[in-house]
Each structure stands twice: as C-alpha cells, then as structure tokens.
C-alpha cells in the first residue's frame, strides 16, 4: 500500500501538538475538508472518532485512534469508502522545537475517485493546517501575558482567549473581557 508523508518543524512543545491532535471535537476548525468531528468513545489511550467531510453526501468516517502521549497519534479507518488504511502522526524532538510528521497509508477503494473524499488527509496540506492551528496557541505561562515579542512594527490590537477571559491589548494597554451572564449560561444576546 502506498504511503505519502510530510513533515515540518514547529516551535512549540510536544504536549501542545499532542493536545491538538487528540482534541477530536476541534478538527473542523483546522483539518482541511472536515466540517464536523467528535469523539464517539474514549478509554485510556484509545479513542473512536468520527469525521464528517464537506462532500455532497456529507460522508462520515470513523477512526480508531491510538495515542502514545506526546509521541504518536495513529488513526486506523473503521469501515466506510475512504481510500485510506491509516494515518500516523509522529512527534519528535524536545523543548520548544519539535518535528511533526504525517504518514498516510492508502488502500484501494472506489472512493479514491470521488471528489472531496480523494483529497482528504493530504499530508502536505494537513501539516500546513496543523502549523496554522498551533500558531494560535500561546506559550504556557503562569500569567496570561500575550505580548508578542520579536514582532516587527507597532502592535495595534491583539485578542487572545485564556482561562481568565478574553485578553485584549490595544496599543500596549491590556484589558480583560468576561462573557456576559446570559452568554455564560448559553443564551445569546441580541
């Protein structure tokens, strides 16, 4: 079975990459073609995840996901017409510089000729998308100092989501925004 792979070096710790890769509720935010994703079951280092793709039929695919903390995330296809047998994310390196690799092993299936499905889990695109997603996270610090260093130019506005609320910097001044009570309880304000 053919295997396609792509790698990149990212400036963050392995724990962050692992957390993003095992957060199956959030794949729609960043993995190309995924419009919805969720964890069906999770026990220890094993999870069953479901991805819905942006195809006309809104195809859903289930994966058996095997995790090795901060090192590897392996997906094996469970049924469906996906021309992919498995996808393996590996994380190597330490400190704030890691290499992440995606190796996708194909299998013959008529689904490979269908638009949409055939482009799912393109290693190069997925690695690029992962890099974008990782870039949204701050370095772990005890205080939510979101100042960006080594940035050319004057920082006008910056927004970040933290446990303390939304931190907003406007021309170097810091503000902390909290959700309104009705928003906290799930209601939307008009």
């Amino acid at each position, binding site marked *: 079975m053919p295997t396609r792979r792509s790698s990149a070096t990212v400036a963050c710790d392995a724990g*962050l990459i692992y*957390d*993003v890769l*095992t*957060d199956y509720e*959030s794949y729609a935010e*960043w993995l190309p073609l995924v419009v919805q994703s*969720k*964890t*069906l*079951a*999770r*026990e220890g280092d*094993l999870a*069953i995840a*479901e991805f819905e793709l942006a195809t006309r039929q809104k195809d859903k695919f*289930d994966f*058996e996901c095997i995790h090795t903390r901060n090192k590897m995330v392996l997906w094996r*296809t*469970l*049924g469906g017409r996906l021309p992919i047998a498995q996808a393996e994310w590996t994380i190597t390196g330490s400190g704030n510089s890691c290499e992440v690799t995606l190796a996708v092993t194909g299998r013959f299936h008529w689904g490979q000729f269908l638009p949409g499905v055939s482009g799912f889990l393109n290693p190069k695109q997925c690695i690029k998308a992962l*890099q*974008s*997603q990782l*870039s*949204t*996270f*701050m370095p*772990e*610090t005890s205080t*939510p100092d*979101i100042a*960006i260093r080594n*940035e*050319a*130019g*004057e*920082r*006008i*506005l*910056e*927004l*970040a*989501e*933290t*446990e303390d609320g*939304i*931190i907003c910097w406007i021309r170097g001044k810091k503000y902390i925004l909290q959700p309104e009570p009705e928003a906290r309880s799930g209601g939307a304000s008009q």
Partner: protein
Amino acid sequence: MIKAVINVPAPRAAVFQVLSDFPRYKEWVPGCEACSVNSQSGSTTETTITINSMKRIELGLRFDAQPDTALAFKMIKGKDLKAYSGTYRLMDAADGMGTVVIAELEIDVGMMAPRFMVDKITRKMMDDTGVAIRAHIQKMGIQAAPVAKPAAAPTRRHRARRLLRVTKTSAGYSVWLMGETHEVKSAN
C-alpha cells in the same frame, strides 16, 4: 477484515449480555435460524449456528469473552466457509448515553467468490447486524442510562489561545487571524 462502528443506545453490560446470549441469537441476528451451545468452559463457549442468508450454512463457532469488554469468535467447524472470525469490542459512548461497538469480521469463502464481492456482502451483514441489535434492544425495553464520565484529559481549551493580532508596519497593516496572515497596504 471488515470493520464497522455500531452505536447502541444501551448500557455496555446490557449490550454484552445480548451479544453473549447465544441461544437467543435466532431472535435478532439477521439470517440466524438456530444457535445452540455445545459446551462452556470459563469464558469460552462453543456453539453451532445455522445461518440462512445467500446460502444455508452451519458453522461451529467458538466464542471467547472478556465480560463487558470484548467478544471474539472463530469458526472451528464447517464445510461451507474456509474461515470465519471476528470480534465485538465494547466502549462506553463519550456522551455517556450508550455503547460504541467496534465490530470486525473476516470471511474467507476460498475460490467460491471474488474478494471484493465477499467484502461487500460482509459489510452489508455488519450494517444489518447493527440495525438488528438496536431494534432487539429497543424491543427488550433496555434504555441508555447516563454513566459516570471519566475525568477528561487536558485539552487545548486550557491553553491560552491567540485569536487576532493587528500590527502597523511601514507598508501598512499586518492582520493575523486564527493562523493566517493578511497584509493590508496603505492607500496612499
């Protein structure tokens, strides 16, 4: 090996009970005409099962159980198939309201039919089994009860996350939004 995920809105123990109640297979397993227990020793049960689907076949099947967790089966006797084996693995649904069954089935009919055709039939059998077990459990009046969820693993939700950054540069503005950078040049 054909794999499938079956969502069953019932507690794991109840689903396992249905899967390991072999004499009652004829009540719900598609095409099953009879299933009798020949012997039982510890977690191993040997049965004879008659299935009338594309063709009427009789198989000797050995089941190995891990209570509430997994049930493996393998053909030990039969003239019609070369091999027949599989597993049912059970996990609590992440939403706490049911069971996720990961079913695996391998059928080898030898030279009788091409592989792709056997796989297609196997896939349909698994889909039908999923529908049948859900219907059987509903008929029995078993309902999903919320189960205590294990403590969730730490996720990125606990990490600070940058959403937007606007920087004024000599050429104009640089807008970084959720991982993508857009350059905005000054009009003059």
